[in-house]
């Protein structure tokens, strides 16, 4: 039986992890490779790295990081952030990334999804969508949630599915950071309009939130950052808890 996936997300800048990360062993805090290894040992099912570097030098450092990650970890990992062309994708995949996540660039030029899917296969194209409810309707936001677009989330989901996306990473801006649980309503609505695997993101605060999202929606993965980085929830404990709640878990 297919297992539900627990996916920690790490923000990367200039090859280092950013955002507060608090482990007992602070030596690993800034080093994405060490942190990734820790999560693999904790039985994470996949990893997502989001690069927030704006400089060219930082992007080169990212490729070196992907090469190191590929050497050290033997589970799938996705790289996102600042990818805007098939050449960007080629460089990251060649360095050893399994998937790439594209967000704003796909909204600006939807054909990018098709180009990547055709050249490298659907399985490596994760379309990340930041969505927010405005007056009862879900809209897509870009540029790290700073710019609202006129695209309705459900329409955009259908479009990228047709263009060849292999997976969706849906972040609810309404729920992100609240720790009140995942955006069940939005995730249910998206599952009704497409058959792609969905990773839920935004709102996880406690173990019950994961049980809820896997019970109430069809998502196959759940992503979180700070609750894992700050050791509020240990992945091994979370998985044990999910198993007790009869969720299919590795």
């Amino acid at each position: 039986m297919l297992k539900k996936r627990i996916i920690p997300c790490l923000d990367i800048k200039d090859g280092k992890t950013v955002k507060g990360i608090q482990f007992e062993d602070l030596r690993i805090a800034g080093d994405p490779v060490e942190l990734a290894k820790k999560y693999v040992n904790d039985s994470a099912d996949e990893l997502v790295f989001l690069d927030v570097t704006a400089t060219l030098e930082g992007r080169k450092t990212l490729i070196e990081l992907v090469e190191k990650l590929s050497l050290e970890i033997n589970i799938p990992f996705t790289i996102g952030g600042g990818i805007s062309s098939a050449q960007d994708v080629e460089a990251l995949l060649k360095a050893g990334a399994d998937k790439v996540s594209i967000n704003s660039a796909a909204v600006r030029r939807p054909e990018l999804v098709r180009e990547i899917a055709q050249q490298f296969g659907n399985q490596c194209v994760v379309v990340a969508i930041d969505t927010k409810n405005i007056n009862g309707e879900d809209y897509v936001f870009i540029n790290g949630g700073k710019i609202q677009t006129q695209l309705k989330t459900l329409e955009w989901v259908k479009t990228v599915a047709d263009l060849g996306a292999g997976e969706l990473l849906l972040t609810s801006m309404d729920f992100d950071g609240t720790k009140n649980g995942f955006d069940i309503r939005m995730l249910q609505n998206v599952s009704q309009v497409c058959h792609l695997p969905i990773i839920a993101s935004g709102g996880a605060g406690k173990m019950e939130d994961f049980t809820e999202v896997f019970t109430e929606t069809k998502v196959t993965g759940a992503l979180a950052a700070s609750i894992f980085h700050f050791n509020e929830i240990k992945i091994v404990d979370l998985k044990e808890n999910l198993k007790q709640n009869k969720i299919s878990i590795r």
Partner: protein
Amino acid sequence: MIAIIDYVAGNVKSVENAVKKLGYETLITSNPEEIGNAEKVIFPGVGEASTAMNYLRLKKLDELIPTLKQPFLGICLGQQLLCDFSEEGNAKCLGIFNLKVKKFPSTDIAPHTGWNNLQKMNGPLLEGISETDTFYFVHSYYCEIGENTTSECDYILPFSATLQKDNFYGTQFHPEKSGDVGSLVLQNFLKL
């Protein structure tokens, strides 16, 4: 020397890293002579079936591969291309396994993405693996079940998770991305 067949869209790097970690020397190549002389050959797969077959024809590997006598492992699309025919781009494939590759019905979530376990296991590739072990899959097309099936996986329907005929082995999952149990499967192949 372990030859890893290079074909533009493949995730050769991860496979190379995984094999090197187990202490073997590798060569990434699409040169028929180098592939023919290798102790073992790994054919990693990512991408689209008809495009990959065109590439194999271009490099004359479609003629070479069926004649190889050393242990040969096709991974993911690599396993599918060892079958007769794939619905993906209606591609005529290499014909080692007398099976068709079909698309998952569109009634459920596809691609089949994530960790899943195997059933009805046999053969040397899966020595030491139990039904509770899980492997990483990501695919929209699957190999049917037939006489060469050496394990099954169940997603929407049962399909061939691994195949074997003589020196030809296939895994639908990615051993190089399946943690420690994946390494064990690679190790089993490499010590054949």
